[in-house]
């Protein structure tokens, strides 16, 4: 592996071209982005709040469950799609401002993802029940009637002999 990397590196240096990229990290990473330790005493909290550009009374860290969120603030989720499209955002493609503190999972709720924070006229449960109700009604009735299919007779019934009564349905003597 190391030889391969060295080879690619040399080829890049010799040719002056970008060379073959065999591996790269998916994104840039910066140590400034790493959240600090979970703040315990009020002074820490105030300092952290200033770091995230929040007022000390607004700042509320995500509860520390040992999974490394650190001092990141617990902010309400306002997804990109439910933000005002007419506001002059600094990053209009993400609908966020520069240095704006955002929800920890904001990248999960971009414009091309779900709008999780929208106010629905009918809740998802209501919609699901309405859809399932209609479907159950139709499909259920259909399968109830499956044994009694209908068919229109195309001709009057024909019996041998014209006008002769074959079965009188009287009690046999």
């Amino acid at each position: 592996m190391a030889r391969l990397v060295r080879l690619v590196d040399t080829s890049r240096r010799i040719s002056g071209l970008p060379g073959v990229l065999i591996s790269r990290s998916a994104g840039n990473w910066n140590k400034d982005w790493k959240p600090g330790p979970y703040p315990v005493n009020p002074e820490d909290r105030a300092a952290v709040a200033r770091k995230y550009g929040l007022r000390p009374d607004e700042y509320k860290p995500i509860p520390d469950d040992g999974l490394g969120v650190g001092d990141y603030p617990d902010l309400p989720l306002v997804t990109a799609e439910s933000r005002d499209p007419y506001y002059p955002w600094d990053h209009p493609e993400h609908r966020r401002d520069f240095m704006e503190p955002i929800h920890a999972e904001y990248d999960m709720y971009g414009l091309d993802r779900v709008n999780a924070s929208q106010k629905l006229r009918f809740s998802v449960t209501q919609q699901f029940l309405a859809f399932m109700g209609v479907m159950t009604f139709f499909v259920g009735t259909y399968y109830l009637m499956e044994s009694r299919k209908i068919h229109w007779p195309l001709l009057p019934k024909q019996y041998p002999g014209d006008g002769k009564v074959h079965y009188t349905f009287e009690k046999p003597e």
Partner: protein
Amino acid sequence: MIWKISMNEISMLGLFLGSLITGSLALLKIKSGVMDVVEWELFSLMGSSIVFTLVLDWISLLFMSFVFVISGSVLSYSGSYMAGDKTFNRFMYLVLAFVLSMSFMVLSPNLISILLGWDGLGLVSYALVIYYQNEKSANAGMLTILSNRVGDVAILLGIGLMSSLGSWNFLFYSYYMDESWMLLKIFLMISAMTKSAQIPFSAWLPAAMAAPTPVSALVHSSTLVTAGVYLMIRFSAALEGSMIQSFLLVISCLTMFMAGLGANFEYDLKKIIALSTLSQLGVMLSILSLGFSDLAFFHLLSHALFKALLFMCAGIIIHSVGGYQDIRFMGNLVKFMPLTVSYMTIANLALCGFPFMAGFYSKDMILEVAFMSWINFIALLLYVMATGLTVMYTFRLIFFSLTGEYNLGSLSNLSDEDFLMTNSMSILGLGAILGGSVLSWMLFPECYMICLSGVMKMMVLMVSILGGLMGYILNFMSVNYLLKSIYNYKSVVMMGSMWFMPLLSTLKLSEKSLNMGFQMEKVADKGWFEFYGGQGLYYLFSQVFFILNSLQLNSIKVFMKMSMVMIIIFMILSM
């Protein structure tokens, strides 16, 4: 060079030529009744032979001919429609790739080689839906491809099941599939349902209208969405007398009804037509599940003609009213663009089954055959209502956009003097008028014997007339100072948004899976995998290497300890 400049004309000519060739070959095949199968055996493995098969019978050749003629018209049409676009060549190549994968789909009777075309259709349709690069298209494209992916996976599972047969040629094997092949039938039904957007999967078809209009005319009305019906037609021998038939019947009838209702409350011009496509797909699949696959094929062909025409008219209208698709922004177009409006009316009448237009021969026959057969009452009821609803939404469309008051923002370039667009519609216009009768003479040399009582015979006509009257009068009345739909808000919203299906299959599903992925990442990636994987291995290795390190110190104490342990072990073992 000349290819780059006039790509659309050259490909149009080529496609028309291809259409002529395949069409005349299809005529020969109908006459002779011969089916040609071309097979290349690629390799054979463990008794199962992997072959690449092309089937050339009248069904595939006729379908190919229709695909070619529609795509030729659409390509010529998009020469003007997409003229202002920067990446016109990309569009052209995508459409040609679509035609190619469609031909693979149509010509292969083999489950593996059909997957090639089937996946190609999904991929190209995704690329065409996201052709415009806004978020709306991206989301619609995602919905399209993920819904179609369900069907692709079903076909893959079907391939796995069929491998026990040693061959994947369902054209032959479908005659010998009894009840023990139920699972395969279910898989193929699911794949047909996703491609043809039947009920649990129908959200993608209206969403796919984010594609450019020529794409909608070719892909989402006449060819791609009928791929599912085509697969079922090929597979129809296996469906005969199985449980699938009754299930497919109720699902397709419900789709037909739901789409008809939805189109009556929809405001987007293209989505109305998409919902009407959905309704007609329901008609095709329902008559197929009643056991008349030739009628389904007949309706597939005639529907392709007038639905492509309808979309092309909609494209001209959208172009000339300045990008708007909302029918509330239109009105009284008949004064400004008479030619387009007359084409649109022809297509609409054909869709409604106006006597002696294209739709009349197929749709009327389908309904009469359905009335004649032993049928479930619910299915019959849905048939009748959906027929009425078809005429109803057509008249609503006519009321809103073609007649009525002028409702537009500006008077700019409202005309149909774009001859490239109007000329390319002429073939399809002819097809919408004559297609049905010609096809019915061609496909059915012996007539279907329809034997119905007078009331039932007139039923279709009566329901259509009633639906048309209701559509026009209700709109006339409901467009009122006191809007009725506000008073029935809940039901109107439910019907207008396709029984909440789009929202349920987008928001609900993706939100759930996103949250699930987030939890998995938290618990697995950052949790247990980290604990036992990264950190755990680090701990383990550091312990092991600590011991190994101490060995390398050459300390006499360590060696003595080790030899002591060895001696003890030997003593225990030797006892």
